[in-house]
């Protein structure tokens, strides 16, 4: 097993506020790593620094041993790192199918070849498979903005996997999804992890979801890692109970 992602002493401050304060961790190939922590603990800022949406104040990010700190999100994505956002991010006026094709089209050929080549960039079959996998086939030609919230959420996740990423960072995939859909989503994610061999990092507040999905969990509080381990270890850790889970 090799290390896909290495994060070393990552820091990000906004004026006097230190949102991420020297975070280090590794993610191994095919692992599903969960990141939990109270609101404002720096989870999303950490994602944004890893993914180039924000420039970190200090620290290093390595992908398969290659330094990628501060690289533009589009270049990082083409290296095989994809993500979803905390809030739903789809293209409402494109059809569901066009959303998926868009998510894959920039990964092949040159800009010029995309202009003179086929309108679907040769991705119709791949989009069809993805639609089937997330059970959205009946909605393929609808405008994405007309879908229900849960369906849009599935589309959002499906887009992140369209290009077969090596590493996927999912920011609260379960947020606002109803329990039935949630089980479906978890099962789909597990299946992708097994089939594509993708490595995942998942930010999540839904404890049941995150404990069932993840192999290992990292707990953040006030921008620092306060605990890590298997779901069972983390659940029993007094520091975690103090900072986040609370006593039941």
């Amino acid at each position, binding site marked *: 097993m090799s290390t896909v992602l290495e994060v070393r002493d990552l820091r990000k401050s906004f004026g006097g506020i230190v949102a991420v304060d020297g975070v280090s961790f590794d993610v191994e190939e095919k692992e599903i790593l969960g990141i939990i922590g109270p609101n404002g603990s720096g989870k999303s800022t950490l994602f944004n620094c890893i993914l180039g949406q924000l420039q970190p104040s200090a620290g290093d990010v390595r992908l398969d041993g290659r330094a990628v700190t501060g690289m533009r999100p589009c270049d990082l994505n*083409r290296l095989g790192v994809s993500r979803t*956002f905390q809030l739903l991010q789809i293209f409402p*006026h*494109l059809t569901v199918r066009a959303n998926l094709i868009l998510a894959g*089209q920039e990964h092949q050929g040159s800009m010029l070849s995309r*202009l003179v080549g086929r309108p679907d960039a040769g991705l119709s079959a791949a989009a069809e498979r993805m639609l089937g996998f997330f059970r959205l086939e009946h909605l393929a030609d609808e405008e994405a903005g007309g879908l229900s919230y849960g369906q849009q959420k599935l589309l959002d996740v499906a887009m992140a996997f369209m290009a077969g990423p090596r590493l996927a960072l999912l920011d609260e995939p379960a947020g606002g999804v109803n329990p039935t859909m949630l089980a479906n989503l978890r099962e789909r994610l597990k299946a992708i992890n097994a089939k594509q061999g993708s490595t995942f990092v998942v930010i999540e507040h839904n404890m049941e979801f995150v404990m069932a999905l993840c192999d290992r969990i990292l707990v953040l509080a006030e921008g620092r890692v306060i605990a890590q381990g298997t779901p069972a270890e983390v659940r029993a850790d007094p520091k975690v109970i103090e900072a986040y889970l609370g006593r039941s």
Partner: protein
Amino acid sequence: MSRRRSLLFGGLLALAGVFLLFAPLGLKPYGIFILSMWAVMTIAAIGLNLTLGYAGQISLAQAAFVGIGAYITAWLTTKGAWPFWPTYVLGFASCFVVGWVLGYPALRVQHHYLAFVTLAFNTLVYLIFRNEEWLTNGIYGISNVPRPSLFGYSLKGAKEFYYFCLANLVFVSAAAWWLIRSPWGRAFVAVRENPIRALSLGVDTRRYTLMAFAIGAGLGGISGALYAPLTQFIDPTPFALGLSLNLLLMVVLGGSGYFFGPFLGAIVAVLLPEWLRFAQGYYLMGYAVLVMVMMAFWPTGLLGLFDRVTRRI
């Protein structure tokens, strides 16, 4: 689109095509001139629709590009005695390059800030046309711009030049249709709707934004290259901010981001004022009220309205 809607749309399109082919036969030269102007302005509006309607980047500088294209063709075919086609290509290429450069501010600012950047650019270009007499002949303009011939066939007559403009419109439309259906068109819409998400999916939003500006400007240049031989006389006045606003009106009124929006918008902006002339002094006032009402009740433009109405059938 449902089958019935497609049929209705196709029928309307065929009717419009027949009208455009046969209209000159029943029109006086002035009518043919106005219809040619519609075709030329539609080309500029198609360009702006790519920049604004599809890629979501506001530009109030489209008139400047029409002007640059017009001056290049006018100057080179009169003083330079160049044949028409190289000036046509040069007009497109120059505007493409200048449009690319004008796109850089759009990487930093959006919406009304960008509107002011492009507005200032239009003013700058207008002032160059007006003040740099050594280059543009200033307010005296350039007259006797020749009309080209095609395969030895002269396009001097109003009717002949009209069909030439129409052919250009068909060519530009086909190219724009291709572009919009290609992955580029999808990327343009993605840049408009959610640039941050687009970036996270590997879409190089910088490059696509610049490209949207450059192509839109290039089509403005083509429009200008036809404008000069159509009017056969150009001076700085038509390329002031007013035309940029008018082109913006064409795009928004027709339906921003709809392929046929500019065609309809240009009917309202170019042809309708002529048809309202019977009202004499009041026609521009009536026109202004009409635009206000249309914008207030149909903000998605005429094609947005068509979309809503025909969704029921």
